[in-house]
């Protein structure tokens, strides 16, 4: 049966018919877009007018997120910024250490079992004038229950004395730069870096494999997606163990599951050959809502963690250059095999030296494995220069820039990491488009919130959290940003023939909005209200989530 939806306005992102009033849907796909008169030619239909006062646009696509955000929401959110939970409640941001402690106390009161840990997330003391947390602060919440609070960066955790004790870390003699010690020679409770966090994390409510998402997490992540108009989202670094794949295939096949989850297999832990073999065999098990067959490589670290690989002159504070997370030879082998077998590879680079390595490696790999539509994508690419964009364009690369980063940490980059000039060119959307590079923009949820309309606003305005515009030249138009969060992201995933626009034959994936993102004043783009989504022709309202 055909359903025709009437809307106030439909933005299709299909240039031959950019705007319409009606869209016909059949078997989960778009049968046609146009006026009611035109669509009637398809025969019997049911007219659905529930969206007649609403704006319909292509369902938005988050090209760089992690489904683990869904799992974090069962814990106490203690971030500095307001943030919406899967149930729609907006948790207010916490402006001080005291406020963080108070929220943790509220959560603590509601946990009956004294053995159960208290877990918090998204702490960012950077906003509290550098006030650090120590174990005594958290002991004030509870001395008997283990407590762990993950920082917004995902790279630091604060724990209380009980948690240190359970992790075997409440002792002297620890010599580790990730474990600061107090005057008593005991750890202060701040744990930096994965090798310290992971063992302690087990005692404070975090999983062994923090990248693996469970069933409830996948549902909660999808509820957030509906609330933000997202119908396709990547899970950008997963090991895709049998258990994770089985769970995800089952959950995403549920008739009420509203999201396409696109997982990318993290390169770590297997040889390039095994990586490609695994991805190829998983690709064959793909479904419409869980398309597999892609790889994520991490080349370097992060800029604010001073672990990104930078070209000369490096960090403004003189910090030693960062770390490689893959050897150039291994990167080459992954590229060679992936090009040979037609697998898409997304490579995380933050520093410009890491981007150079990707360009050099891909150029050489392409010479041996000519490939005309590889769409290899640089993820983050925060410091890509004009010359690098020129090469990316020649090599047929795509890019997914971290537009949100600018808002949350732009001030820090300007002052503390790379200095003014390079801070202006970070996440350079205008330059990417000028060089005709297919571009997406992202949140890296849970690092920053899943909300493509906010991400679009961030790319359009380039405001930092203090309201200062940083890198005016790199701003893009609303239309360009809306393209980036739909077709732009779809293209990087080789899914643009299926999603990203409202066009005959494609999946009926729509975002249903209360306000018109193309018409509202630019500053309101980030707060455009989302009614919900249509995904594969099924209707999901935020209110029901």
């Amino acid at each position, binding site marked *: 049966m055909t359903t025709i939806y009437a809307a106030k306005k439909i933005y299709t992102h299909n240039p031959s018919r950019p705007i319409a009033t009606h869209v016909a849907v059949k078997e989960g796909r778009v049968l046609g877009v146009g006026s009611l008169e035109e669509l009637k030619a398809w025969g019997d239909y049911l007219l659905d007018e529930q969206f007649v006062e609403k704006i319909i646009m292509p369902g938005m696509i988050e090209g760089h997120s992690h489904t683990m955000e869904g799992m974090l929401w069962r814990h106490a959110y203690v971030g500095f910024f307001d943030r919406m939970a899967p149930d729609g409640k907006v948790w207010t941001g916490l402006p001080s250490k005291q406020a963080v402690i108070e929220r943790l106390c509220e959560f603590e009161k509601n946990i009956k079992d004294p053995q159960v840990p208290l877990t918090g997330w998204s702490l960012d003391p950077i906003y509290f004038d550098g006030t650090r947390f120590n174990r005594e602060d958290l002991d004030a919440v509870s001395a008997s229950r283990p407590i762990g609070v993950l920082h917004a960066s995902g790279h630091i955790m604060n724990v209380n004395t009980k948690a240190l004790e359970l992790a*075997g870390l409440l002792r*002297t*003699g*620890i010599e580790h730069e990730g*474990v600061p010690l107090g005057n008593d020679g005991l750890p202060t409770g701040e744990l930096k870096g994965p090798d310290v966090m*992971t063992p302690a994390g087990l005692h404070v409510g975090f999983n062994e494999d923090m990248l693996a998402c469970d069933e409830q997490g996948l549902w909660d992540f999808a509820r957030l997606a509906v609330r933000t108009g997202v119908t396709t989202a990547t899970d950008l670094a997963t090991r895709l163990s049998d258990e994770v794949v089985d769970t995800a295939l089952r959950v995403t096949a549920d008739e009420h599951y509203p999201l396409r989850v696109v997982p990318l297999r993290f390169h770590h*832990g297997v040889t390039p050959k095994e990586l490609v073999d695994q991805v190829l065999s998983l690709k064959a098990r793909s479904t419409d809502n869980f398309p597999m067959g892609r790889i994520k490589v991490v080349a370097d670290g992060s800029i604010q963690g001073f672990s990104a690989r930078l070209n000369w002159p490096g960090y403004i504070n003189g910090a030693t*250059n960062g770390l490689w997370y893959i*050897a150039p030879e*291994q990167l080459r082998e992954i590229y060679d095999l992936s090009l040979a077998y037609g697998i898409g590879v997304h490579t995380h680079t933050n520093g410009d030296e890491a981007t150079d390595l990707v360009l050099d490696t891909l150029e050489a790999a392409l010479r041996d494995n000519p490939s005309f539509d590889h769409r290899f994508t640089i993820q983050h690419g925060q410091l890509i220069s004009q010359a690098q964009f020129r090469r990316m364009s020649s090599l047929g690369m795509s890019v997914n820039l971290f537009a949100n980063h600018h808002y949350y940490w732009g001030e820090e980059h300007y002052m503390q990491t790379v200095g003014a000039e390079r801070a202006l060119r970070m996440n350079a959307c205008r330059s990417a488009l000028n060089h005709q590079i297919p571009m997406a923009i992202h949140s890296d949820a849970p690092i920053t919130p899943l909300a493509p309309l906010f991400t679009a606003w961030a790319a359009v305005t380039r405001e930092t959290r203090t309201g200062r515009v940083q890198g005016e030249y790199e701003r893009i138009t609303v239309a360009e940003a809306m393209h980036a969060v739909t077709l732009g992201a779809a293209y990087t995933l080789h899914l643009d023939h299926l999603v990203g626009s409202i066009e005959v034959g494609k999946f009926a994936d729509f975002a249903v909005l209360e306000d018109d993102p193309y018409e509202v004043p630019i500053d309101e783009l980030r707060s455009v209200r989302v009614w919900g989504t249509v995904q594969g022709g099924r209707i999901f309202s935020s209110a029901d989530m």
Partner: protein
Amino acid sequence: MNFTSQKNDSVLTPVTLLSGYLGSGKTTLVNYVLNNADGLRIAVMVNDFGDLPIDTSLIVAKDDDIIQLSGGCVCCSYGNDLVRALARLQDLPNKPEHVLIECSGVALPTPVKMSLSLIQGLAYDGTVGLIDGSQILKQLSDRYIGDTVARQIKQADVLFLSKIDKLTDDVKQSVYEKIGTITSKHAVGIEYGSVPLDTVLSSYVADDLSVDKDMKFQNSKFTHANFESMVVRHENAVNLTILHSKLTSHSAGIVRAKGYLYADDGRQYLMQLVGDHCEFTPVNKIPISGLSENESAFVVIGIKGKLLMPSLS
């Protein structure tokens, strides 16, 4: 220099790190060590099971996470979580007597070394750095990995140079000179991973110290063209700080030292030295027969022709 607080040294499991870029011969060395384990229960930890670095002939059984090797040795993967993998090893029914961690090709050893202090019961036993003699000049001038390889060399306590047999003398000379600009340690040439095990693992350093009184050379349990060892005995109390600086000075040519000291603070210590890293652990009683209370005795292993024992007085 470190003073360990744990009194009972015997429960600490020594952990040796094996560092080096791709192709430097880490896998060959691991297999050499395992083939010559000689009854010592060694646990080899690798970053992943992707490129299993173990001769298949050594494999007895495979469990989920742990591969059983002949002679009671095991091999296990640590992925992203070295600390928990190490903790798990401690719980094995047949706890390993020595742990050898093979770092990934781009990893720096110092962070791995720091992780060891997060777990009780482990003692750092040095970083063995491997250098691919045939590639090192190219690697060090590579714009991407040059600084990483140099940092790996700088952070090693003992350095071996592999694949030098086909190099001309001129090239060999440049290799040594280049390494000399990075570290004051001598890189010792090796073939096919064959190294004296007592330079890699302190567990193999002979503890039979009841030999001649006056610094006589003795044959190492493991003969090698490029190394020699000697036993040092000393009758008066030693100053640990002075001893430490003498043993680690470039001119002493010492790779490892292990033994017992009577110090000028009136206490007795177990000394374990590898490269620049030295631990002094207080002991209640020196477990060597024939040694009087105020006597010290230790073995030093060093590079042949360069091993000099500076006067202790």
